[in-house]
C-alpha cells in the first residue's frame, strides 16, 4: 500500500475535523455565547457611561475573545487522544507538523472565526466608534490564528496529563502578552486617530513566524507528551 500524497492527507484531516465539529454544532456556539456574556457584564460592572465604555471597548473585546479561545483550546486534541486517532496521526507517513497544522486550521475555523464574526456586535455594544471596527477586525484576524497556533503547542504539551485547564491558562499568559499588546495598540492608535499600521505590521510579522514554527513545535511537543 502506498502512502497518500500530502495534499490529499491534509484535505482528509481538515474534512474530518470540520465534519466532527459540524456534528456537534452546539460546541461551536459555546465560546461565542461566553464572549457575549462577558462583554455584557462589563457595562453592568462599570456603569453605562458611554465615554468610559468607548475608551475600554477595544481592549475588552480583545481580552474577551482571548478568554473564549482559551476555553475552547482545552478540547483541541482531547477527543482525538481518547479514541486513539491522534496516535494514528503520529504514526502516519506524512509529516506530523503539516497534519497538525491542518488540525489547528480546523480549530481556528470553528472557534475563532465565529468569534471574529460577533466581534463587531460586541464592539457595538460597548460603543466602539464604527470607523475603528475594521482595524479591530484586522487585528483579530492576525491575532487569533497566533493564539490558536501558540495554544496548540501548549495543548500538545499537556496531552499526557489529566487536569490541564488552569495550567493551560498559566502557560499561555506569558506567550500571549505581546499579541495582546500589539493588537490592543493598533486599536487604541486607530481610536486616537494615529497611524495604526506599525503594530498591525508587527502582528503580521509575528504571525508569519508562528505559522512556520508553531506546527513544528506542536509536533515535537506531542511526541514528548505521547511517548509513555
Amino acid at each position: 500500500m502506498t502512502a497518500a500524497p500530502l495534499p490529499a492527507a491534509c484535505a482528509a484531516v481538515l474534512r474530518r475535523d470540520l465534519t466532527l465539529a459540524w456534528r456537534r454544532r452546539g460546541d461551536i456556539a459555546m465560546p461565542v455565547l461566553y464572549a457575549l456574556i462577558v462583554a455584557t457584564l462589563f457595562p453592568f460592572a462599570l456603569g453605562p457611561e458611554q465615554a468610559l465604555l468607548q475608551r475600554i471597548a477595544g481592549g475588552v473585546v480583545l481580552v474577551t475573545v482571548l478568554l473564549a479561545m482559551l476555553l475552547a483550546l482545552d478540547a483541541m486534541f482531547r477527543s482525538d487522544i481518547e479514541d486513539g486517532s491522534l496516535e494514528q496521526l503520529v504514526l502516519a507517513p506524512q509529516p506530523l507538523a503539516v497534519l497538525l497544522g491542518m488540525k489547528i486550521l480546523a480549530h481556528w475555523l470553528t472557534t475563532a472565526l465565529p468569534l471574529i464574526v460577533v466581534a463587531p456586535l460586541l464592539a457595538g455594544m460597548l460603543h466602539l466608534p464604527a470607523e475603528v471596527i475594521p482595524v479591530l477586525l484586522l487585528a483579530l484576524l492576525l491575532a487569533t490564528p497566533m493564539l490558536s497556533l501558540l495554544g496548540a503547542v501548549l495543548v500538545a504539551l499537556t496531552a499526557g496529563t489529566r487536569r490541564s485547564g488552569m495550567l493551560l491558562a498559566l502557560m499561555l499568559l506569558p506567550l500571549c502578552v505581546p499579541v495582546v499588546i500589539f493588537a490592543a495598540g493598533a486599536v487604541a492608535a486607530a481610536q486616537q486617530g494615529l497611524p495604526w499600521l506599525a503594530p498591525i505590521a508587527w502582528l503580521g510579522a509575528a504571525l508569519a513566524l508562528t505559522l512556520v514554527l508553531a506546527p513544528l513545535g506542536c509536533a515535537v511537543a506531542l511526541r514528548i507528551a505521547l511517548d509513555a
Partner: protein
Amino acid sequence: MSDWIPLWLHKLGSPPVFYRFAGALRPWMLALALLLGAVALYGGLVLAPADYQQGDAYRIIFIHVPSAWMSLFIYGVMAVASFIALVWRIKLAEVVAMESAPVGACFTFITLVTGSLWGKPMWGTWWTWDARLTSELVLLFLYLGVIGLYHAFEDRRQGARAAAFLAIVGIINVPIVHFSVNWWNTLHQGSTVRILGPSKMSGDMLWPLLTMMAATKFYYLASLFGRIRADLLAMESGKDWVRQIAAREEAR
C-alpha cells in the same frame, strides 16, 4: 591529549557519582554563600555612603539587583539544561533543569517584592505597569508554568521533558515580551552597571553589589545541589546505590 576532562564529565552524568560530588561540594558552597552574603550586607548597609538623591532607601538594591540577575541567570541555566536534556536525553540534565525552576522562581519573587518595597517611597506606588516590572512578572509566570507542567505528569521523566520544552519556548519568548512591553510603557531606570566600559556607580556601592552577586551564585549552587541529591534519591529509589545509602543510614 587531555582525555580526562570529557571522561570526567561523562562520569559526572551518572547519578551516584554526581550524588557524591554534590554532597562533597555543597557545604563549601553554602559556607561561601553565607560568608560572602554577610560581607556584602555589611558593606552595603554600613560601609557604603547614602545616595545623594535617594538617601538610605536605595540600599535595598543590594538584595534587589543580585536577585534580578539571578532570576535571569537561572532561567538561562534551566533553558540550557533543558536543551541538553531534550537533545541528548541525559537524566541528570532533566533534574538540573527541573530543580533550578523553584530556586529561580524564588529569586524572581524576591525581586518583585523588594522592587515594590523600594517603589513605594521612590515612585509613590507599590506597583506600576512599567516594562521591566512587567517582564519580571511574566518571567515569574513562565517559571510557575514550568513547575506546574512538571508536576502535572504522573511519570517524572515525561513531565521533565515536557517542562523542558516549555522552558525552551519560554526563553524565545522572554526577549519578545521585553521588547513589546518596552514599546508599551517604560519608567524603570536604565542600567547602571556595565560589564564593558566604566560603570555609572561609585566603587563603594559597587563592590558590595558584586560580592552579593557572587553570594547569590553560590547559594544557588548549594540549593541546587541539595535539591538534586534529594531528587536523585527519589528517582533512583529502586537502584542498588540508593539501597546501600539507605542501609548505611539504617545502621547508624
